[in-house]
């Protein structure tokens, strides 16, 4: 029984860590540019296909394909997304941009289906399907690898944001762009960096999750929803909130499937969302934002 609980906990943390990576992207874009990207799930779906294209069409080995696919993704989902969609739309307000990203999500999904087909495709895992036994409890090495890579990525991001000048400038931009500009911080460049970081995070999430989900054009639907809920649960304006929300969602989802009902597991995150909105709208770790009219 205890072994089952521990296995479920670790598997839930591994999946939750991926939700957290995607949720961090939500919070980063929101904080720096008031962008809510409803194509975030499709942003995770797409890099895996770039990797498959690099492997299939250009015959690159896996890791070279990951680098090539990652570079294309960062350019497309970071730089071009900001320049071609966010910059022209954001001046019309948040809502038009939200609608535009919903349209982008549909476009990305249907394009992949048109080009690569509606089938699922196998994607190489990062580790062999073996187990390690710790104190009599066996854990999947693949889950541990996902967990370790995700934690390392989040730690590196925190280190960058808190320990470097650029990172602190990005934080200043997020807190108050007007004052940041007065202090001589190149605000536009800092915002661009957050889009590039978001793109890098979704590439990482894509490489980690696709061996489990298999590469399919619909992968973004569930991921985008879960990550969005995770960001709201944890606190949309705090990176640590997104991390907590993601991990919590992953663990709760697993325990619900086993100990409550696998049929209702999809409902649990939504119930969580409703409860949080009703009783703690700023999220578990978020801060209250006040706006004057």
């Amino acid at each position: 029984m205890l072994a089952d609980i521990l296995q479920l906990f670790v598997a839930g943390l591994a999946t939750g860590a991926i939700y957290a990576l995607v949720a961090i992207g939500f919070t980063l874009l929101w904080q720096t540019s008031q962008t809510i990207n409803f194509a975030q799930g499709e942003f995770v779906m797409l890099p895996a296909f770039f990797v498959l294209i690099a492997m299939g069409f250009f015959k690159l080995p896996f890791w070279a394909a990951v680098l090539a696919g990652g570079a294309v993704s960062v350019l497309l989902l970071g730089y071009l997304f900001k320049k071609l969609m966010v910059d022209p739309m954001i001046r019309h307000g948040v809502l038009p941009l939200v609608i535009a990203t919903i349209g982008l999500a549909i476009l990305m999904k249907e394009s992949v289906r048109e080009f690569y087909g509606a089938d699922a495709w196998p994607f190489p895992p990062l580790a062999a399907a073996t187990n390690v036994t710790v104190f009599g409890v066996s854990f999947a090495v693949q889950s541990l690898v996902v967990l370790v890579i995700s934690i390392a990525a989040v730690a590196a991001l925190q280190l960058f944001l808190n320990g470097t000048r650029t990172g602190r400038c990005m934080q200043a931009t997020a807190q108050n762009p007007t004052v940041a500009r007065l202090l001589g911080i190149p605000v536009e460049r800092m915002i661009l960096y957050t889009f590039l970081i978001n793109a890098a995070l979704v590439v990482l999430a894509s490489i980690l999750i696709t061996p489990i989900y298999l590469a399919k054009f619909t992968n973004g639907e569930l991921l985008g929803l879960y990550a969005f809920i995770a960001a709201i649960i944890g606190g949309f304006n705090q990176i640590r909130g997104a991390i907590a929300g993601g991990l919590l969602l992953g663990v709760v989802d697993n325990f619900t499937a086993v100990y409550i009902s696998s049929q209702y597991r999809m409902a649990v995150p939504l119930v969580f969302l409703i409860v949080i909105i009703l009783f703690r709208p700023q999220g578990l770790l978020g801060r209250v934002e006040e706006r004057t009219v």
Partner: protein
Amino acid sequence: MTRLKFALGAAAALLLAGAAAGAEVKFAYVGEISGSLAVSGGNFRDGVILAVEEINAKGGILKQKIALTQYDTQTNPGVARAQMQKALDGEPYAVFGPIFSGNVKVTMQMMQQAEVPHFIGGEAAELVTLGDPYLFRTSFGQQIGMPKIANYIRDELKAKTLALIWVNNDFGKGGRDKLMKELAARNIKVVADVSTESGQVDFAADVVKLKAANADVVFVYSNEEECARIMREARKQGLKGPFVGDTTLLSQKTIELAGDAANGVQGHVGLSADAPIPAVADFKARFQKRFNYIPDHNGLKGYSGVYAVKYVTEKLGKFDRKALAKMMHGLTITPKEEPGILIETSWDNTGEIDRISFLAEVINGQQKITKTLPKLGK
């Protein structure tokens, strides 16, 4: 004079075009081209396309070329009804699909009312019990396959306990209920009964449940993509098996998606592109050449369904939907009579199918047939 020549020429062209259009018989594929069953539906559709192209290349049926129109149900019962209505508005001679049993169920009444023969890919047991005289299977229903699997689990694997993971849709529920009944009759205890959702992507929690059950056999009953994900997760978590299943678990697509995780999987397959039959091997080669991928059992289902229609129509000597449906009941077609049928096939009075089937195992990423089981009628 020039104008007159032009007018006569145009009139002749129109007449010829009209005659050419009249020399076509309409077939419709209404099935899953997208959505969670796109893999199965795509295979079935490509089997239909291959058969249609071959028949057309040889002059068609009763000298009429087949005009095939495709309709995508998106694996969605609501869409399936709308698409089937669209197909019926085109007055097809026969309809192929759907593959998803739920979609068959919601459209079969429409087919019955329109009196159009439909050759389905759905395998849910109840479909042939609903009294539709125009419905014909292209593969076994679960009531035929499950007793064979239960015998295999008892006699070959000597299992006393079984952990079951199944997909909660019409196909999965029908198979699960039928298997439970067959296992109970053989004193095999089901120690885990894990329901999953169609299109589910994360099976970590479900596999933990299977592991905790510590059963002699793990039975996986889902659609191809989900079977592959389950197998990957099972191997990841070190679940030992043995893993047993029906056609979908051993299908080419599942093997391709699951990779090494599919090795060692065993079970019963109603149809297989790897069947040790030369005509099936030829079909597999032609299919692969045409579509650049290896077909699974659904490709065979679509292909042989079209040839069944061809055979009966040519026997009738006319395009008559009612007569076609009537003649199909109680009919046996042998490969000698119609090579496109590939394997001797019979239909009973409910539209249920009977043909030989196979026991198989996945070895080194290939489905290997280990035993051929006779037709139930023999």
